[in-house]
């Protein structure tokens, strides 16, 4: 019987090694897989490349990974925020490399990876600093920049509900990067609020089919493990 559920976040991230490229879902805190990021920080593989919309807020999540000096490089659209001080410090000290990507190109490059495309011509960024050094081409009456797919070894995302096949539904704007990152990573690991029996999720409304999912872990798993006697 297929069962993609694992019982602890530590188990879910157990084979993420130093040097891995990791997509992390979320837009701000909506859809941020906080449990999985914390398990990753505890595991502490170094030299990570992180792909995410932001570069961390406050003290938790990606900010905590940066504070723990696990992140060598980050690909994101919006690193600078009012509370991105861990990123800011690391960046200004030259300890972290930044690839800044317009948000829609970030999404499109992740989608291109998931769909097996080798590159895409996008109009976004043409004529700007962020297209510097990139191949450009006029197609029809418009100018485009050639952008390459962004793949990852792992995607850490958050969804609302899953079943044992790994089918996922999301909740409101916490969906954001989850579905496309799930398609672009070799291994997708999902933190969910609830696991339901197979057949409960409406086949017309499943957003991420289980084919894109490797492990599912309950957000409440730490507590569950604690409650059961550890």
């Amino acid at each position, binding site marked *: 019987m297929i069962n993609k559920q694992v019982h602890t976040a530590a188990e879910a991230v157990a084979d993420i090694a130093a040097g891995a490229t990791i997509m992390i879902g979320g*837009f*701000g*805190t*909506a*859809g941020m897989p906080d449990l999985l990021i914390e398990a990753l920080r505890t595991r502490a593989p170094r030299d990570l490349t992180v792909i995410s*919309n932001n570069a961390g807020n406050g003290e938790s999540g990606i900010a905590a990974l940066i504070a723990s000096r696990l992140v060598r490089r980050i690909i994101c*659209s*919006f*690193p*600078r*925020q009012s509370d991105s001080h861990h*990123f*800011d410090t690391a*960046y*200004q000290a030259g300890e972290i490399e*930044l690839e*800044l*990507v*317009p*948000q*829609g*190109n970030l*999404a*499109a490059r*992740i*989608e291109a990876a998931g769909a097996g495309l080798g590159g895409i011509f*996008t*109009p*976004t*960024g*043409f*004529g*700007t*600093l*962020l297209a510097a050094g990139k191949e450009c081409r006029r197609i029809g009456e418009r*100018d485009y920049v050639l952008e390459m797919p962004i793949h990852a070894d792992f995607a850490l995302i958050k969804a609302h509900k899953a079943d044992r096949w790994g089918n996922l539904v*999301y*909740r*409101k*704007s*916490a*969906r*954001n*990067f*989850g*579905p*496309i990152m799930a398609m672009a990573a070799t291994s997708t690991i999902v933190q969910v609020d609830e696991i339901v029996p197979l057949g409960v999720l409406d086949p017309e409304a499943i*957003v991420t089919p289980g084919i894109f999912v490797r492990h599912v872990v309950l957000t409440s798993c730490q507590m569950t493990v604690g409650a059961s006697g550890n």
Partner: protein
Amino acid sequence: MTRYSRNQMAARVARDIAEGTYVNLGIGLPTLVAEYLPAEREVILHSENGVLGMGPSPLAGAEDFELINAGKQPITLLQGGCFFHHGDSFAMIRGGHIDLCVLGAFQVSKGGDLANWHTGAPDSIPAVGGAMDLAIGAKRVVVMMDLLTRDGASKLVDQCTYPVTGLNCVSRIYTDVAIFDIGSEDVLVSEIVAGTSLDEIKRMTGLPLRMP
């Protein structure tokens, strides 16, 4: 000289938005436009983090931090609204499906180039978000800004000195002093806030403007 307040500018922008328009309001000043859309006029607001049909802010205590806008503020969803992922959301933008995008700006050039993402200061940490997609994606991109900086320099310029966000993408500029339309040849002053003359605006901008 009379100048529009932020709220008056927002009300003026809102007046031009017809029922049935799909609109993305940029972070900051443009967000205020939503407050001036009459409730009976159905205008569908897009947020690039995967929401179409944004409603008003939730009541205090009713916030849901999984239902936020691009500025990461809690919002509500109207009946008929829906959610989608970032890929689809930016396909809406880049693919020209959004009718109107209202953005703030540091500078707009007379050719419609937009600068609104980066001051270019060498020690600053750059952040772009969806600015470049929004700049070039919507069917119509308009800017909402004070005409002058605090130092009195015109933000409507011959050529942008800040790093550009997009080239030749702005159609109209709503300012506290006047409304400007970017023509194929020159810049038209389409509407002037009462009490200011075209000559004054020409002096403020240093540009060869004309009335339509």
